[in-house]
């Protein structure tokens, strides 16, 4: 896992933009109609979801490699 993903679910409206633009299918819309992380290990920390989230509900931090 290269990244840590944080969700502010109380802001999420479930529009699906993050799910559509994720190149690795890390995200999905759950039964409650909100974004959820289904494949965390696949995340490459590209940040496309955070960039285009209109509700500021998702945050991706690159994991710092321990030296």
């Amino acid at each position, binding site marked *: 896992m290269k990244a840590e993903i944080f969700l502010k679910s109380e802001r999420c409206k479930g529009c699906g933009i993050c799910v559509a633009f994720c190149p690795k299918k890390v995200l999905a819309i759950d039964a409650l109609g909100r974004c959820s992380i289904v494949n965390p290990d696949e995340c490459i920390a590209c940040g496309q979801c955070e960039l285009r989230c*209109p509700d500021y509900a998702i945050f991706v931090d690159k994991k710092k490699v321990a030296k």
Partner: protein
Amino acid sequence: MEDRIYEKYFRQHRLPHIWCPGCGNGIVMKAIVEAVEKQKLNRDNTVIVSGIGCSSRASGYMDFDTLHTAHGRAIPFATGIKLANPKLNVIVITGDGDCTAIGGNHFIHGARRNVDLTVVLFNNSIYGMTGGQASPMTPVHKKATTAPYGSVDRPFDACHLAEAAGAAYVARSTAFHVQHLTDMIAGGIARDGFSFIEAVVQCPTAYGRKNKMADPAQMMMWMRDNAVMKAAWDKLPTDKRDEKFPIGVFYQHEFTEYGKAYNEVIEMAQGGKK
């Protein structure tokens, strides 16, 4: 989680915002605050002025000195602010209906005067808040509640309009091209004069559902596929332009800024005979 710089510019207790799921306004609002950060504007010296409409709700979520004004009248209010205190950085947020219909005259005369404002037009091609009526920027043949068989009115190209009216900086970008949009807005803030940036945003609720694009991600992919950078657009043959539209900086020019011209008049009037 690392702190995000853009988060500090929002009124946290006002979030989540009122916009529909998938609305592009949130993306552009973030681009504006990132441009403010990029240009290192002092928050106490920055004023956000907005008109009426979906787009203009943005001023309520931004932690600056903000002013939510009358429909179409954001540019006159902003002009007053700038002339009263020329040290302020004034950013105007407006929508396609607000700017080109209700405030059409204010828009062209604001550009003509060349007051140092940065005007960001959120173009969602429709009147979203009032129920999806066709706006002056609804493309031909696209449906709206007041155009159930498709709009017959030809739309304004707000960028051409701003350029013809005398704006000092004219640019366009989309909600898909977030970093590009931030750069365009930052360029507008840096320019001393009337800067106009059109941000194409998706409105899945009022516009998309009427026009077979109810999915916001699909609308953003449409932007990705149809927006062409200015340099490539100039080389594109006319028959291949089709639904495509250009993005980038279209026009830049140095004109005398209104405040400076006005100060010269004050000096002349107070100076007596020379």
